[in-house]
């Protein structure tokens, strides 16, 4: 074997040694790379008292193609976000945890509905629910929110605006 070849092999082995993953130090066993975060859903009913609502939330994460050196494809998503809890809203009328449709539940998609038969109903902008999520830690999800219906105590539908906010302090 030529000296240059031997030298190359030695260098290669040393590189392997240096670049080997340091999993023994500081790494935790278990599923790496997820975080938990809430999404707060707000409904603005204007002057109408809100007695019932239904909406759909889809949370998507672009394929992490960038890790492979390719740009992410805008039309290709993976269901990496998982819904891990549904919490009630801020007004007493909607404080109870709202129901979701189990048949329609997917990892990243949920249909939520609630109603209140009480006399004290919220008007204007109010937080109606908080959705708790497990998200891949290196990505920021994209959210799609669809209001199916907002109605008053007589069952009359009215136009309303549905928005969301992220972050822990609400």
């Amino acid at each position: 074997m030529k000296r240059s070849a031997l030298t190359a092999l030695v260098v290669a082995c040393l590189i392997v040694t240096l670049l080997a993953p340091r999993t023994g130090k500081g790494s935790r066993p278990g599923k790496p790379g997820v975080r938990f975060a809430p999404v707060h859903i707000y409904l603005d009913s204007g002057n109408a008292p809100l007695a019932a609502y239904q909406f759909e939330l889809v949370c998507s994460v672009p394929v992490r193609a960038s890790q492979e050196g390719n740009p992410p494809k805008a039309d290709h998503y993976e269901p990496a976000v998982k819904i891990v809890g549904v919490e009630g809203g801020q007004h007493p009328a909607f404080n109870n945890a709202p129901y979701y449709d189990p048949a329609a539940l997917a990892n990243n998609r949920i249909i939520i509905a609630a109603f209140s038969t009480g006399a004290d109903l919220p008007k204007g902008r109010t937080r109606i629910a908080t959705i708790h999520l497990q998200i891949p830690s290196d990505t920021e999800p994209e959210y799609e929110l669809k209001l199916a219906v907002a109605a008053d105590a007589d069952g009359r539908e009215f136009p309303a605006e549905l928005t969301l906010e992220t972050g822990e302090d609400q």
Partner: protein
Amino acid sequence: MKPKHLIALLILAVVLAVFTLLIPSLNKVHRYASRSDQPVSQPRQSVLESHPPSEQEQLSWHDLRDGESAEQPASLQFGETRTYALERTASDETDLSLLGSPSTSSAADGNKTAELHTIYGDSYGGAMGGAANRPQHIGTPQSQPRLQQAYQADRGLERRTLAPDLASVTADEIWVIAKPEAPQAVGPQYQTPGSGAMLAKVEEKEIPLPLKHTDVKGQISGYIATVEVTQQFENPYSEKIEAVYVFPLPQNAAVNEFIMVIGERKIRGIIRERQEAEQIYAEARRQGYVASLLTQERPNIFTQKVANIEPGKAIDVNIKYFNTLAYADGWYEFVFPMVVGPRFNPPGSTDGVGAVGRGKMGISGQKTEVQYLRPDERSGHDIALAVDIDAGVEIEEVSCATHATQKTSDAPQKAHVQISPLDTIPNKDFVLRYKVAGKTVKSALVTHTDERGGFFTLMLYPPDDLKTLQRSPMEMVFVLDCSGSMNGQPIARAKDAVKRALRKLGPDDTFQVIRFSQSASQFGSQPVPATPENVRKAIAYVDDLKGSGGTMMIEGIKAALEFPHDERRFRLVSFLTDGYIGNEVEILEAIHDRLGDSRIFSFGVGSSVNRYLLDRMAKLGKGAVAYIGPNDSNSEIVDLFYDRISHPALTNVTIDWGSLKVEDVYPSRIPDLFVGRPVTVTGRFAGRQNTTVRVQGKVGSYDKELAIPVRLADEASTHPGIACVWARRKIEELAARKTYDDSPSLPGEIQRVALEYSLMSEYTAFIAVDSTHQTAGDHGVTIAVPVPVPDGVRYETTVQN
């Protein structure tokens, strides 16, 4: 550089590279052994297993009580506890990196490390063979760091503290030095509590356990109950904890709601595939988020975990379920089980439900374990229970033999019952029976329709005139459980029942009495005629039976079902047992394989019977089950039993659904209808027209037909829980098939139904995470909630220590 030098360098580099690639994976195993976030696939290891002494290392145990040193800890008596310091002394050649030392360079001077261990004396009895009275379990008390430091200083060991891996060992690990002879199961993914801090605190009765209170509210409408169970957890310790509670629910409970309550905030849990939910929970727990997980271990045993409860904080978990009430001999019966009875698991099994003493998590080798309080201990956990009955027709009588109750009523068809504040220890089933007036009980359809379609349940009552017909001669086989859990009151009641039943046999009948515990034996080599002389001898035989040993029920099954059947007689096999076994699937499989023409009519005996097992045995055995509680009248129950089997059943039952288009009916084959024992049928339907359902069958050689009018518009005949009841029944049927059908599609089918209807099952779980707040620090110590042994059951003969 010469080529030979290069080659040598190459070899060195290759070796270095290989080691570099391999060591991390070795390191992982090493770390899992002592870290709290060990994965499910890794069994727990002891310090001595993960850090075995090398040949150059000497171990020395120092009893902190008297300072005595020894090569190994003293043999302790059952219940005795002693704290030792384990010193490891290494020679200069010892590579202390094996002990997790940051480097070996400091080993030249003072090659000693010290670890504190609490050792519990154990009494394993025959099952553990030579392990009896040997020290079995060693805990590392987290509450003793100062003691450890003081010890190290005293011994001149301050130059070397604990190795990093050992220092990270938390209090809730149980180290097994002397392994039991039975194979060890894969440990649960959570740490096991009990040693060290928790034991000390509880024994001193300074701080109660994290489950403070359970509140149960039931609403009965017709024969369907809607029950909300609230478990109130609170952290009374000074550090963060994870609470783990193994608890029972009715075997036919359709659990479909799960809400975690933190102060005023209510977070609805999400139903998910079980493994996925467990992964989410583990990750949330690891990252410090408050989370809760509900899993099903058996159809009537569940595990509740609540992670990251901060000191002084309270978290409630609210569970809601539907179930259909049993109806027997004129009474509807609402049952709420309060404690899981201590189960016996056959040697070699690892998938059972272990029964261990408080703080002894892990010693049973079973996947699921229940910790039990000693008889002189009492946790602060109590229970409140209230039931509202709306029978729809006048209630004639309400009775509760298990608890002191307070009853009120503001209408003839309604009643409110709650357990007395003086009877709040959760150590026995709550059994409430009520009877409606006159002959108002009739077969009727209850329906629910939503966007998924129509669902119904039909409680099918046997025709009244069955009572006028007499049965054919019987071959009666009594199978009496004489295991340790039956010792005392349960076996006394079972023996009384057998003796009473023997006296009621007719001259044309034959009988056999079989007893089983570790093995089975019987009264005679074959069934004998029920002559007065034979009955007298059999009663003497029964009188001599005692309860002790394990519950090898399979031996009783074989003895009862494997001998030749007398074709001229109707063969009835009657098991009298508490059902405290962990291998239910094996038993049900054995019954399925051996039943033949036999029918199984069993008695569940005790205060907290394994009703899942007894009910499934009755269904598989095409018979029925009755329960004898501590305060029930033996004579009444046995007489009713005889009334039931003294008349022929309605057999070959078929149903014509009229104009309803019916599918997915469970049970798929309608069982025989016996006197006093209706059958609940559930299914899906399409159609909106009123109709008449016709039930046809045979009584002997005669045809019999029942007509049941159906009024779909009648709101009194609807119930929102019917869809869940149907889905739960479908899951039950699929799970029953799984005991004898290897079809790989069954688990997936169960999971699909459970996810679609948001139901607990073997393959699904509820997960709830509060992502708005991340608690500080590590996930803390895992505390299992110990429970009392059921009323009438002896701790000493049933719980492993």
